[in-house]
């Protein structure tokens, strides 16, 4: 699975990577009135044999080494660059994925291509196929390092912050959405815990407990609040609602006891297992409910061995 994940990520990055993140933006250009004798100097300065011809920031043509040799061979006197430039060369857009740029370059057999803004034709960069892989790898390295740093920062927050105690508090509001689309908060809690570097078994327990509780909020209470506190010792999840309340909590905790209507059962819930599942996932589970006022659940999952 590990290898597949890496390949997936590289594929994803290749599709996400845009031309603008790897194009060269620092280079000299020529004006249509410039003469062919100037071309060699510009190619040398740019260390690139593609010379864009630009008027009012707009690309009007390109000169390559072939055009320059053609002029040299002709032994003609100095001529304006417009006499020798290409006007219908392939161009790229900065927002284009690198993958599509590679395809275009290979189809047109171009080695160096200018990058222009789609509407205005304004020149913004140049791409060279011979440096492309190096540029892509550099960009991958930057993205990878950024991800590593972000992950490191989140997962080491408890060690990096100097304080007598560090506690991260997350608050989620569960809106009164149809139960069919529920589970978003549990999913967000899982992602947050993953980013904080919490052990995967504990994430699984917190996810299952949160998910059951979230579905209960949607089925019976019309929404509510999740307060999640994470510290090196434990994950504490407090779920509160202002729903109708549970008349007999002891009975509600009996496995298989359910008051769920058919529409809840049709969604794959309401078999009288929810509260028991939450209890099984928790090291401490408390429930307090008052009819007409609401219900409050407290779930604690220990992160440190006692």
């Amino acid at each position: 699975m590990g290898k597949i994940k890496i390949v997936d990520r590289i594929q994803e990055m290749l599709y996400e990577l845009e031309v603008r993140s790897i194009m060269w933006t620092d280079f000299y250009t020529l004006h249509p009135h410039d003469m062919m004798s100037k071309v060699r100097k510009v190619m040398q300065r740019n260390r690139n044999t593609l010379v864009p011809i630009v008027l009012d920031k707009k690309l009007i043509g390109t000169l390559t080494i072939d055009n320059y040799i053609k002029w040299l061979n002709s032994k003609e006197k100095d001529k304006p660059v417009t006499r020798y430039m290409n006007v219908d060369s392939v161009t790229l857009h900065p927002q284009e994925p690198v993958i599509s740029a590679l395809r275009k370059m290979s189809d047109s057999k171009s080695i160096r291509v200018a990058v222009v803004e789609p509407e205005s034709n304004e020149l913004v960069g140049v791409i060279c196929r011979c440096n492309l892989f190096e540029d892509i790898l550099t960009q991958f390295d930057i993205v990878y390092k950024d991800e590593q740093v972000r992950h490191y920062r989140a997962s080491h927050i408890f060690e990096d912050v100097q304080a007598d105690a560090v506690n991260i508090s997350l608050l989620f509001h569960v809106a009164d959405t149809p139960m069919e689309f529920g589970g978003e908060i549990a999913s967000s809690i899982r992602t947050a815990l993953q980013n904080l570097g919490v052990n995967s078994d504990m994430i699984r327990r917190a996810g299952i407990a949160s998910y059951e509780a979230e579905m209960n909020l949607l089925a019976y209470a019309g929404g509510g609040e999740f307060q999640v506190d994470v510290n090196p010792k434990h994950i504490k999840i407090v779920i509160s609602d202002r729903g109708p309340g549970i008349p007999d909590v002891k009975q509600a905790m009996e496995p298989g006891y359910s008051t769920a209507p058919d529409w809840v059962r049709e969604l794959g819930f309401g078999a009288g297992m929810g509260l028991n599942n939450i209890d099984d996932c928790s090291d401490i589970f408390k429930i307090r409910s008052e009819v007409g006022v609401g219900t409050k659940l407290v779930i604690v999952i220990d992160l440190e061995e006692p």
Partner: protein
Amino acid sequence: MTIEKIISILDCKILNLDVSTDSSVDSVYATDLMSDVLANCKKGSLLLTILSNLQSVRAAEMTEVQVVCYVSGRQPKPEALAHGKKKQMTILTTDYSMYRACSLLHDAGLKE
């Protein structure tokens, strides 16, 4: 058992072609009750179910199940398929009934 093998045993259609079918599952769990998935389905299992709504994929996500197969030709709802893709799950469908699918996988040696 590799996903590739499961696809051939159950004659599955694979609904998200961008995931690899080389990875494997250690066990299988078959149910239409999501609380049952949450209570009893092991991490890394194959989940067989007829329930095709978003919750079938949510329950798989919570229990860390990466492969979901819908039985009796059931197609997952669009939001279920979209969420499964987002979580890089393998989403399959088979025309076999739950009973038949279980018996074929059991005969091939896949345990609960």
